[in-house]
């Protein structure tokens, strides 16, 4: 179980990104995080794997205190948590293969990894994970020669190299068109249902939340304003989250 208590993040410029966030996620959940741009979704996800240092509060995950971890401990925790990004964050000029391989870095010794020496098992894992996201033929092309949807699948394959127990997805489909959005989320759903990974995913569209998530939280100005089942988000809730003038837009 991932438990977040009194999490607060104030940026050096004084912006309060997270005010006092409390919630918990059971293992195996698909948690959707919704809210307007700037409501703190990205900050929240990055605090969970300490890409951003929280100002105060506590994050515990299956008994480990993530917020208290130091140095090597953080890396050990991070490697169990896969992350998927809105802009894919691939090295554009490197091959798909190398990009996927780099997901394994948390597990290997530094020196061989600097010379790009990996074990046979790791190489086999790259091929297996590329197959999982249906990109086997694209292993040796440049990452930026792929379409957006394909690049995001490379991002997923890279995260899978970590054998993660949990996946953090920061607006994984915001840069993609609606059809591709479903493809990507279906992969995440599959990982969640078949391999039991906990998924925390920030999303913009409510119908994607209804379709894929098993639970949801909503952030507004750095506070949790809703926590519950996706279907509980009715019109009134929606207006509370997105403001009075918001209109529901649905995609395909």
């Amino acid at each position: 179980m991932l438990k977040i208590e009194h999490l607060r993040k104030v940026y050096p410029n004084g912006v309060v990104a997270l005010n006092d966030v409390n919630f918990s996620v059971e293992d195996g959940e698909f948690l959707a995080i919704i809210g307007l741009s700037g409501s703190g979704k990205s900050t929240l996800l990055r605090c969970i794997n300490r890409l951003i240092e929280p100002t105060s509060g506590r994050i515990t995950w299956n008994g480990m205190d993530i917020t208290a971890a130091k140095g090597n401990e953080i890396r050990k925790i991070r490697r169990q948590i896969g992350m998927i990004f809105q802009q894919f964050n691939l090295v554009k000029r490197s091959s798909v293969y190398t990009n996927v391989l780099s997901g394994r870095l948390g597990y290997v010794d530094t020196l061989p990894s600097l010379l790009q020496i990996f074990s046979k098992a790791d190489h086999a894992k790259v091929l297996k994970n590329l197959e999982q996201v249906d990109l086997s033929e694209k292993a040796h092309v440049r990452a930026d020669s792929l379409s957006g949807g394909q690049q995001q699948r490379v991002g997923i394959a890279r995260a899978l190299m970590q054998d993660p127990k949990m996946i953090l997805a920061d607006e994984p489909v915001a840069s993609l068109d609606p059809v591709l959005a479903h493809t990507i989320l279906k992969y995440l759903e599959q990982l969640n249902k078949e391999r039991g990974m906990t998924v925390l995913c920030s999303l913009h569209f409510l119908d994607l939340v209804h379709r894929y998530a098993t639970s949801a939280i909503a952030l507004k100005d750095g506070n949790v304003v809703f926590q519950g089942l996706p279907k509980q988000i009715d019109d009134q809730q929606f207006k509370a989250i997105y403001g009075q003038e918001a209109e529901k837009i649905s995609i395909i």
Partner: protein
Amino acid sequence: MNHRNIQLIESPQKLLSISIFSLIIPGLGQFLQKRYWRGLTIFLSAFLLTFLISWALNTYEIAIIYFGILETSWLFIPLILFWIWNVIDSVNLRNVKTFTPLPGILCAICILFIVAWDVTEVKPNRLIERFNDAKTIATNIANPDYLSVDINGEPEICSWNCLWSNLKNKLSGLPIQNIHLSDNLGDIFGRIRTVSSLGNPIKPTFETGKLIETIAIGLMATIFSTIIAIPLSFLGAKNLMDRVPGGNIIYYFMRTIFNLGRAVDTIVWGILIIVWVGLGSFAGVIALTIHSVAALAKLYSEEIEHIDPGPVEAITASGGNTLQVIRYGVIPQIIPPFLGYTLLRWDINMRSATVVGFVAGGGIGYFVLETIQMGAYQLYAAALWAVAVVIIIVDTISSRLRENIILDKPKPPRKPGVIGYLKPAVYILLGLAAFIYCWNITDINLRSLFQPGPTFLQILKDFTHIDLSFDVLNLVTKQIIITILQAMLATFLGAILAAPASFLAAKNLTGKSRLLAWLYYLTRSVFNFLRSIEALLYAAIFVFWVGIGPFAGMLALTVTTFALIGKLFSEAIENIETGPIEALTATGSNRLQMIFYAIIPQIVPSFVSYIVYQWDINIRMATIIGFAGGGGIGLTLSTFFGSLQYHKAGTVVLFIVVVVALMDFASAKIRETLI
């Protein structure tokens, strides 16, 4: 939308006051309306133009007229017009917010040109009067000394005429002369020696030619500067230094060092270095290395600043440590652009290596200097053609490789076993062998770096208290003004000549016409050929034609400007949007109409920006053109250095650095506003 009009009606008094502000101090009205850059530019322009006019009047009596006993300059008329434009502009700024700066610019250009024409001693009549000299040198250049025949035991140059008559004799069965490779060719490319200098037979050894030495100088400088620039560039990257305590200071310090290193031309570095390590190829290598470390480190730092932070974040998130983040998130992103810049620098270094010998005493530059001093123009011609061929080859290789880097495809994983390592091993061995060979022929002597010549300490001492007396300042000011104006004239002349030619060199305009396609290849080749030779080498030709002085230097710069700007212009034309052309073709207009209505409006901004950029480059070149008799500040510098007056030479170097740095800044600023 309406409040502007209301303001206009409300404030006739304000209008009056603004015009008065601008009347008293040009640019003040603009400044008060929060158009700070415009105001500052107008103020500085007015100040500099006034200074220039009175300086030209006092020093050269340019544009002098008499009112009774009062003597003044009629150039004050365009200055007054400039002043009036400035007042109108300040008022118009209030009303409609925009007003064309064109009249102001025209007035300024008019003043600059008239003064420039006089101070650079432009005498177009000389081009015609001394046409015979031009013919002589053209004949010499067309008949390079590559082959010779022995006449009465003395070798004589055998060029086209000699070859032709021998060919005719051969065909008609007459006896032919014994044609062999000339001594000069051996000097340039190298020769196999079988007898020692004392005449004793020795084991055949290859003696390196000056051209090979030049190639080695360029190569070594590129390798050294890359190795030195990489670590420095990390210190000059803002995004990295912001993370380190006190890094900001290091960042600004490094950037200043880079800019100073770039502002001093290779040739100027050369004369400083020979005092340190003595004449020779090694001095050339060091001079080139210093200049290119500064240039490369700046480009590298900018590249580091522009990396995509995404992969860094992703690899951190997957548990990678700092070293792994650098290896997988940073290095793959910076290696291709670094390689690209190094290749570009290699091209530039090869060009500079051909002239660094003018002062440093190594490579083909020194050879050229000697041949010119002997008046042996056929020997000079042989070097010139050889340089052109080498530089064109280097240019082609460098740009091909750079294209490949941009499009590069990731290599498939290395084959396992010995075979996988064989190919890289062979490359490494070949590279190493070439490196050692170049090391040897460029006389690299690291020990001499730590045993500077005795005069070097003198330089350091003299440079700390440079001569700022009135006479020296007066002379240096005069020469630097000549240099700036020389560069300006060359830029405009070159650009005017290049503009029409560049249309012929644009691939997208050739259409289906055969003739135009041929003209395209012809103009392209002319640009590439002319570009391959440095202005200093051209100067020798023009000095012979129009005599020593700034005019010759200006003409030499015009030729290189024509070639470089012609290439840039034609590329600008090739990059225009095709939509408007398509639309005009659809209306049934012809090619000329198309150029005037669809192409010119699109290319004017980039043309102007290239001209400004070229002026910036030309000022750097003009600071050294004096070394080949082209006048300007370079002449002063070489005189002061030659007579060991280092405290005066220091003043010149200081002026050069300040002017080049200011022009660099101004040019960047102007180009920013244009685009």
